């Protein structure tokens, strides 16, 4: 699974972000706070200024292919995600959406192509996958909170093992994140004592504890009872407003429409359509997109 070569983080290319600094804009009322009122189109201004800085896209996929044995699941994916962009990925099951996310944080090794994280090639042999996964956060459909640990321990496990920060600082950040997702009183509880929506919010907080540059959300509301979905979407919307770069695989078309900057439709391992969420959802051009949306937007 992992290459047996030396483990070094990729060498930075000129103009890339300093890995030691925390990702920009994860404060309340970030660059797009005033621009994210529902009903408004995505505002280009903040991203334009960042583009002018010459910052490389947070995630870039070039010709990515992934096969499981004889079955080719990703058939040539080219994708660019800019800083603070929220990219929604929709499509039928089996289209490769989850595999796409899992390739970006190297849970699955790709068969061919390149993946660049802030300009650095993370798919070459010298990259340490563990280093990559500290920069890329993931939230799973099944939450996957560690059942034998309290909520607080779930949040602090990785930072305590992987960073040199003092324990009090880590716990402080954990409490702040719990507060942010609305679960301050649950620090001492165990995952099974929480509802699905609460568990998923803890899972999001856990991913954020590592201060990732980009967050991958893999159908994070699909396993929830309908009435618990909105509390999780609220948290994701809040993250979007504060500038977190996110790739969101979702079936929640309303959320994609209102909160995503760009929408991508995948089917059969390729991206068939891409663009402004409203454009794609209201006026799909590819026949398969139209077919899919007709079934989904009942």
């Amino acid at each position: 699974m992992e290459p047996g070569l030396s483990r070094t983080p990729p060498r930075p290319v000129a103009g890339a972000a300093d890995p030691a600094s925390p990702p920009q804009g994860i404060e309340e009322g970030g660059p797009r706070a005033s621009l994210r009122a529902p009903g408004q189109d995505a505002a280009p201004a903040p991203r334009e200024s960042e583009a002018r800085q010459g910052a490389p896209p947070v995630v870039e996929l070039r010709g990515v292919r992934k096969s499981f044995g004889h079955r080719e699941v990703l058939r040539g994916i080219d994708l660019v995600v800019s800083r603070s962009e929220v990219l929604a990925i929709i499509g039928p099951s089996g289209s490769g959406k989850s595999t796409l996310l899992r390739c970006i944080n190297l849970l699955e090794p790709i068969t061919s192509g390149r993946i660049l994280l802030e300009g650095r090639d993370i798919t070459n042999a010298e990259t340490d996958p563990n280093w990559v996964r500290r920069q890329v956060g993931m939230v799973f459909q099944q939450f996957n909170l560690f059942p034998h640990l309290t909520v607080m321990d779930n949040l602090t496990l990785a930072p305590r093992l992987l960073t040199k920060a003092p324990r009090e600082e880590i716990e402080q950040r954990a409490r702040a994140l719990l507060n942010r997702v609305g679960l301050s009183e649950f620090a001492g509880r165990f995952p099974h004592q929480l509802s699905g929506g609460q568990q998923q919010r803890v899972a999001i907080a856990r991913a954020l504890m590592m201060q990732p540059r980009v967050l991958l959300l893999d159908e994070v509301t699909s396993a929830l009872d309908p009435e618990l979905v909105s509390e999780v979407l609220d948290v994701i919307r809040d993250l979007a407003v504060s500038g977190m770069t996110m790739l969101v695989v979702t079936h929640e078309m309303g959320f994609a429409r209102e909160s995503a900057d760009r929408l991508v439709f995948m089917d059969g391992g390729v991206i068939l359509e891409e663009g402004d969420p409203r454009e794609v959802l209201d006026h799909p051009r590819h026949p398969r997109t139209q077919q899919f949306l007709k079934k989904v937007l009942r």
Partner: protein
Amino acid sequence: MPGYHFDPRVILQQLPALADGLRLTLVVSAIGMAGAFLVGLAGGAACALNLPLLRWAVPAYVEVFRNTPLLVQIFFLYFALPEIGVKLSGFTVAWLALVLWGGAYNTENFRAGFEAVERGYREAARALGLGTWQTFATIVLPLGLRTALPSTTNTLISVLKNSSFMVAIGFPELTDTTVSIVSLTFRVFELFGVIGVVYLVLAWALSALMRGVERRLALPAAH
């Protein structure tokens, strides 16, 4: 019991000898159980972590010690090894045979327990950036151990009972001592009866202890 004169006095008369035998049984079983537990844990971990060299050496060891009779293993250690210069005392063979036998079965118990840990938990740990060893120590081991405990308990009880096999090499644990006493007094019913009860009480106490451990470690039930 037609024709058998039941006389429990023989137990009281032979109590010192029986007590000595029991003491050796307990010592050898304790070492055997502890060793079998540790060997099983290490072996199961080696398999789960897919360590180089060990990933075929451990299964080979398991196959040998699961598919041959314990008695043959004991004879080999005690009678065959001296022929190639390795002379082990009766005491050493007693606990070593138990460790090797129990360790093989426990390796399978723990390996199964570790592999049963839900993939999602392991993936979540990897996704956070935890390495293979870190994931194993903090997630796979604690969760897998709980799953493996019931079958491990079975193996440990078997180790306790299998200490009686040492009669084959004349090591004076409880069963061997009793056989000697029987050959002198012929009070088969009383003597084998009483040590049967002794083993039963010991095994029962052990499983009660393990149940307590399982309960303490158990993850709280879902609401």
